[in-house]
């Protein structure tokens, strides 16, 4: 056996064979790169207004056109993308950290602890999340309008629940496996058993769900922005503004088109990547 083989290298090998997933990863990387690198490199400013060039269609001076206040739309789309992606990834990381820890503790200790912890999750599931989110936004609104933090907190708070359930289910079966008993027989304590022996076995499925959480968060944020509960500048916000100025005489199509395309491609790519990861991590789950 000369070829390297391990659970991670095997999964990676399966992943790179999946063209759709690789393309998805590429698109996400390119979009992320553009959003974060282009504005500083080209000195684009999403805030400079110039009423004399308001509502200019895409063309030479402003590649993607301008909006109603004459702001460069390329700059706005890219900086808006920064916010959307940032919130998507940050809320996902938060949900992964909280969900994995919560789920691991609940599943590992089981019994009464598990019962109480999971009923709390059920309770939070039961509360309409829009209600939760709006509540948090209102709490924060005075101090931090336009700040991404409350949105991020609100979304993280909703998304960790699924992660906790998934991890708890996995840990529940893993803790009965013999290698866990073997680790305890060697004198490993609970902390060590959970972090060193159980969590590596959950890493694959966490990566999959994490990857699928990013687009879920992004779309949720866009939705909130669309309702006017979002942050200052994001794709959802841009779409909302664009829809607001549509009228029977002039459509200002570019205002709607660019953020929508970016949003759709990013979400689709992330979902392809997540599906690819799922197949790579657990090839048996494939239909």
């Amino acid at each position, binding site marked *: 056996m000369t070829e390297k083989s*391990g659970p991670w290298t095997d999964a990676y090998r399966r992943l790179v064979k999946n063209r759709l997933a690789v393309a998805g990863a590429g698109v996400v990387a390119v979009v992320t790169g553009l959003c974060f690198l282009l504005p500083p490199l080209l000195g684009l400013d999403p805030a400079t207004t110039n009423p004399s060039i308001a509502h200019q269609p895409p063309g030479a001076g402003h590649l993607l056109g301008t909006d109603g206040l004459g702001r460069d739309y390329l700059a706005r789309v890219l900086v808006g993308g920064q916010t959307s992606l940032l919130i998507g990834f940050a809320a996902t990381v938060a949900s992964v950290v909280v969900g994995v820890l919560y789920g691991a503790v609940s599943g590992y200790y089981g019994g009464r602890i598990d019962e109480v912890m999971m009923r709390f999750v059920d309770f939070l599931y039961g509360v309409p999340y829009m209600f939760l989110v709006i509540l948090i936004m209102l709490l924060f609104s005075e101090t931090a309008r336009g700040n991404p933090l409350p949105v991020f907190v609100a979304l993280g708070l909703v998304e960790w629940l699924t992660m906790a359930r998934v991890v708890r289910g996995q840990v529940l079966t893993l803790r009965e496996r013999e290698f866990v008993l073997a680790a*305890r*027989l*060697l*004198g490993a304590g609970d902390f060590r058993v959970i972090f060193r022996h159980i969590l590596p076995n959950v890493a694959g499925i966490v990566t999959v769900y994490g990857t699928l959480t990013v687009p879920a968060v992004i779309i949720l944020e866009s939705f909130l922005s669309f309702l006017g509960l979002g942050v200052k500048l994001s794709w959802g916000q841009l779409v909302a503004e664009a829809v607001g100025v549509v009228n029977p005489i002039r459509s200002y199509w570019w205002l709607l088109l660019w953020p929508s395309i970016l949003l759709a491609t990013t979400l689709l790519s992330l979902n392809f990547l997540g599906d690819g990861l799922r197949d790579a991590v657990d090839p048996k789950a494939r239909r």
Partner: protein
Amino acid sequence: MTGEAPERDATPLLSVEDLSTEYAIDGRVVRAVTHVSFSIGRGQVVGLVGESGSGKSATGLSILRLLPREGRIAGGRVLFEGTDLAKLPEADMRRVRGGRIAMIFQDPMTSLNPYLRVEEQLAEAGVLHLGLSHRKAVAEAVALLERVGVPDASKRAHGYPHEMSGGMRQRAMIAMALLGKPSLLIADEPTTALDVTIQAQILDLLRELVRERGLSVILVTHDLGVVAEIADRILVMYAGRIVETGSAREVLTRPFHPYTLSLLRSVPRLDRRASRLESIAGMPPRLDRGPFTECTFAPRCPLVREGCRAREPDLAPAGPDDRRLRRCILAPDEVAR
């Protein structure tokens, strides 16, 4: 093959006294281990024999206090090097596990974590118990892997468990158990999942380790052949009780309890022509229906008689000048073939 048990030390390494273990299952109490007492000296190999559900594994797990959460030690003492493990605080117990007492079990396929490199699991005891750096512990693990006969040890150690064969994994498990330099090894069916040639190799390895390091071994098995190969003394368990003990040779050649006799008769033999393999009729008693008012083996016993139903016999010497114990009212001559 193996000599008679040399009792090198006056005080035994481990002495289990009146150990009882219960499982609470669906509101019923199952007495998996009932008043079990035995001891093991340094460098001794004790075979714990019995059919499935006889309480032999539960005894092993009770010693290390790693019973499933439904289980608990209901009574008795587990004296190891003078300390009662049954009463030791959990933190101290963790130092015993893997450090002073190690355990390996039946299925080497599932005992190794598929997501960890072999060396990382093996090195753990070194880090936890010997205070070695990770690097040193890995070096130690590789040396041990070589010792237990894993070819190309450093490469194997760097790989994952799925790249090894069953025999190799059981060797790796043994190496893992030995790394913390334990003085007692509890081997729960260590060869059951392996094919016969590998089985012999693993037993040879265990025997060498006993000789080399003065390791004591409690060998839990249902395989009398394995016990005959390696054990100095035998404890035969039935329905959570010890029904017979004695030196391996004596018990296997001249059993004093009908259950031991039936077990021996149901081992397939090459030197005897038989059209059917003998088995023991009936089922072991349900252990949630105690206490018993008759001998627990009476319903299945081929030699059962009036007195067997009166009360459960005590574990008593077979004769006035006999050190062997058995739980039966019959005279030894009535049982022996």
